[in-house]
């Protein structure tokens, strides 16, 4: 297919999609173009919008691409949607989310042992918002339920993948090394694909 035409089709797909579109999904529609080509086309569209200073742009998020408005127009859009200054997550919710995001899969007890308080209510809220999901059970005594973040989590924070999570701050202080070493022994399973290089 003529690349010009293909680019226009990709544009149409991105324009209409309600969710981020992955390269695979676009490929399925176009059929002829390769992943590399599609990526190139998206790049061209991106550049076109940037150069022409369009009010919208393409972002790479949750493993796909999505068209969205630029931050400069936020106030106007909020006016249109009459959104109350958007509901943000509470600090306990964010802390719990952080613990899950960096340690997944993780059990409720493990989360509570880090936070020092119960997380049942917060966990429920996070699941209702589809930011956290049950990933299954750990094959250990009691077969406790393990939790992980969802694709929606990535979208919510504008991340393309878990690898984009901000790096955890290095523990401060002199006794850091001993503490780090000791803390490591208490953690039974570290997921291999954890973004934290420990």
């Amino acid at each position, binding site marked *: 297919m003529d690349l010009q035409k293909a680019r226009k089709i990709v544009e149409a797909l991105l324009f209409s999609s309600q969710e981020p579109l992955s390269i695979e999904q676009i490929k399925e529609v176009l059929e002829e173009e390769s992943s590399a080509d599609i990526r190139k086309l998206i790049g061209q569209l991106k550049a076109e919008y940037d150069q022409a200073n369009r009010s919208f742009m393409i*972002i790479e998020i949750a493993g796909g691409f999505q068209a969205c408005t630029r931050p400069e127009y936020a106030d106007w859009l909020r006016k249109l949607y009459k959104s109350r200054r958007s509901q943000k997550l509470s600090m306990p919710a964010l802390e719990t989310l952080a613990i899950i995001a960096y340690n997944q899969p993780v059990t409720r007890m493990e989360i509570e042992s880090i936070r020092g308080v119960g997380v049942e209510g917060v966990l429920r809220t996070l699941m209702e918002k589809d930011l956290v999901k049950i990933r299954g059970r750990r094959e250990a005594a009691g077969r406790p339920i393990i939790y992980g973040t969802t694709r929606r989590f990535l979208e919510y924070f504008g991340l393309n993948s878990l690898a984009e999570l901000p790096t955890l701050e290095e523990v401060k202080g002199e006794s850091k090394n001993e*503490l780090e070493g000791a803390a490591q022994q208490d953690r039974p399973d570290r997921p291999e694909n954890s973004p934290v290089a420990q």
Partner: protein
Amino acid sequence: MAYKVKLEVFEGPLDLLLYLIKKNEIDICDIPVSEVTEQYLEYLELMRLLDLSIAGEFLVMAATLMHIKSRMLLPLEEREVLEEEEEDPRAELVRKLLEYQKFKEAAGKLEILETNKKEIFSRTVDQDTLAGDEEGEFFEANLFDLISAFSKVLTAIPRQTFQEVMVDEFSVEEKIGHILDRLKSRPRAYFKELFEHITKRLEVICTFLALLELMRMKEVIVRQPKSFKKILVIKVEKS
């Protein structure tokens, strides 16, 4: 004494401790336990006076702090003889504080990401479309139908005519896991099937509550082809 009523409300004892540490500019790795314990207890007293509910965890931490303080009061040689590990009595607490602080900071960073993301808009997704398409006409099962179905299952179980003191064998959380396991292999099941092989009323109730929880968490949806027909429980596909 006049109390300043601008009181910060803390989510838990670690939260409060970190606040005290920061406020007093204490080095986390060398906490003056006596001082911190005193301030911590003062704070709990304040909370009590203001009628704020104090979660159990705060009291556990108060006891922990006092325990650490008492250990610190022992002369060094005596301490080493009494304990197997020659560990600083504060070490465990410091570990917990540092770990929690790490995630508190991470939460702060997530908050920034959240704020930035809210400045951009894309086509919003309709929550109901996430459920996926089903064949045929379905109504969202209505709460009363669900309760009737539950009531039917419950009445099928003979009422116990004698009191029996039983160990709580079932928990809602456990039943949640149960239902999910069940739906893993076959993502659709009839409401009644979830109660197969259950002989105890308590178990029926736990299972029903688990189902309601799962609906609330949007892990499953419940559909009914027509009023009064069999109810279908469907696992929600999430990526």
